[in-house]
C-alpha cells in the first residue's frame, strides 16, 4: 500500500491535478474577490479597513498550518524514515515563508488605520516574526547543508523548537498583552464574527488553499525530477 504513495507513482497523477487546479483557480478568485471587495459590508468600528482581513487571516492560518504539517512530517520521518515526507517538506517550506511574510506585511498595513501604527513589538507580532525566522533557518538548512544526516537532524530540531512558537502565536491574543484583537473565529464555542464576513473569508481561504496546492505540486514535481536526475547521473 505504501508503494502506491511513492513519488514515482504519485508523479503520474500530478499533471492532471495541476491542470484541474489551474482551470478552477481563476473562477474561484473572481468570485472570492467580488465578495471580499464589493459584497462584504464595512465593519461598524473598522469601516472598510476590515477587508484587509480577507488576505491577512488566510495567510496567517496557512503559514501556521504549513509549519505544523512540517513538524509532524519531520517527527514521522525521524521514526519511520519515509523519504517522501522530506520531499514534501522541502516543497512546502518556501510557501510557508511566503504566507508568513504576507501575514506580517498585510497585518502591518491593517495596523496603521486601526491601531495608528505600522508596527508594535507585542506578543502576536513578535511571535510571528519568530515564525518567519524559523522558516528562513529551515529553508537555509535544507538548501546549504550537504551532509544528509546533519541536514535531517538540524531541520527536525529546528521544526520542533519552532513548533513551540505555534501555540504561543495562537494564544498570545487571549492571554498576553497585545494590540491585536482577540480570537474572533473559534472551532469550539461561538464565534464573534458575523456571517456576512465569514463567506468572503472562507472563499478567500479556498483561493489561498488552491494556490498553495498548485505551488506545492509544482515544487514537489520539481524535487522528484531533481532526485531522478541524480539517479540518472549515477546510471552513467
Amino acid at each position, binding site marked *: 500500500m505504501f508503494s502506491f504513495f511513492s513519488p514515482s507513482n504519485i508523479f503520474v497523477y500530478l499533471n492532471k491535478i495541476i491542470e484541474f487546479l489551474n482551470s478552477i483557480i481563476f473562477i474561484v478568485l473572481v468570485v472570492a474577490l467580488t465578495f471580499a471587495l464589493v459584497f462584504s459590508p464595512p465593519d461598524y468600528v473598522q*469601516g472598510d*479597513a476590515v477587508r*484587509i482581513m480577507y488576505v491577512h487571516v488566510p495567510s496567517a492560518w496557512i503559514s501556521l498550518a504549513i509549519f505544523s504539517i512540517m513538524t509532524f512530517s519531520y517527527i514521522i520521518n525521524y521514526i519511520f524514515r519515509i523519504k517522501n515526507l522530506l520531499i514534501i517538506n522541502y516543497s512546502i517550506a518556501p510557501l510557508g515563508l511566503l504566507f508568513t511574510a504576507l501575514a506580517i*506585511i498585510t497585518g502591518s498595513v491593517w495596523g496603521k488605520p486601526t491601531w495608528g501604527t505600522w508596527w508594535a513589538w507585542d506578543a502576536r507580532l513578535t511571535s510571528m516574526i519568530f515564525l518567519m525566522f524559523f522558516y528562513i533557518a529551515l529553508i537555509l538548512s535544507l538548501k546549504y547543508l550537504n551532509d544528509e544526516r546533519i541536514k535531517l537532524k538540524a531541520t527536525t530540531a529546528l521544526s520542533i523548537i519552532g513548533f513551540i512558537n505555534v501555540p504561543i502565536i495562537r494564544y498570545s491574543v487571549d492571554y498576553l498583552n497585545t494590540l491585536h484583537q482577540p480570537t474572533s473565529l473559534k472551532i469550539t464555542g461561538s464565534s464573534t464574527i458575523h456571517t456576512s464576513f465569514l463567506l468572503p473569508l472562507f472563499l478567500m481561504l479556498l483561493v489561498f488553499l488552491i494556490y498553495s496546492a498548485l505551488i506545492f505540486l509544482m515544487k514537489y514535481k520539481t524535487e522528484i525530477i531533481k532526485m531522478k*536526475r541524480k539517479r540518472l547521473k549515477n546510471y552513467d
Partner: protein
Amino acid sequence: MIKDILTMNGYGLYVWLSFAVTFFSCIFYYVKTYKELKKYEKEFAKELMELSAIDRQEYLENSKVANQIFLSKSKTI
C-alpha cells in the same frame, strides 16, 4: 459605486495595498515555480536524449517519471 470601491471610504490605500502586495507576491512566486519546473523538465529530457538508444530504452522502461517527461518533452527538444 466604482468610486466607493476605489476609495473604500478613506481606507482605499490600505485595502488596495494589502491586496496588491498579496496578489503580486503570489503571481511572482507562481511564475518562478513554474519556470523552475519547466527548466528541470527540459534539462532532464535533454540528459535522457544524451544516453545511448539502448540505455535510454532500458531507463525509460524502469522509470515512470522519466518516461512521462521524455514523452512530453521529446517533441520540443
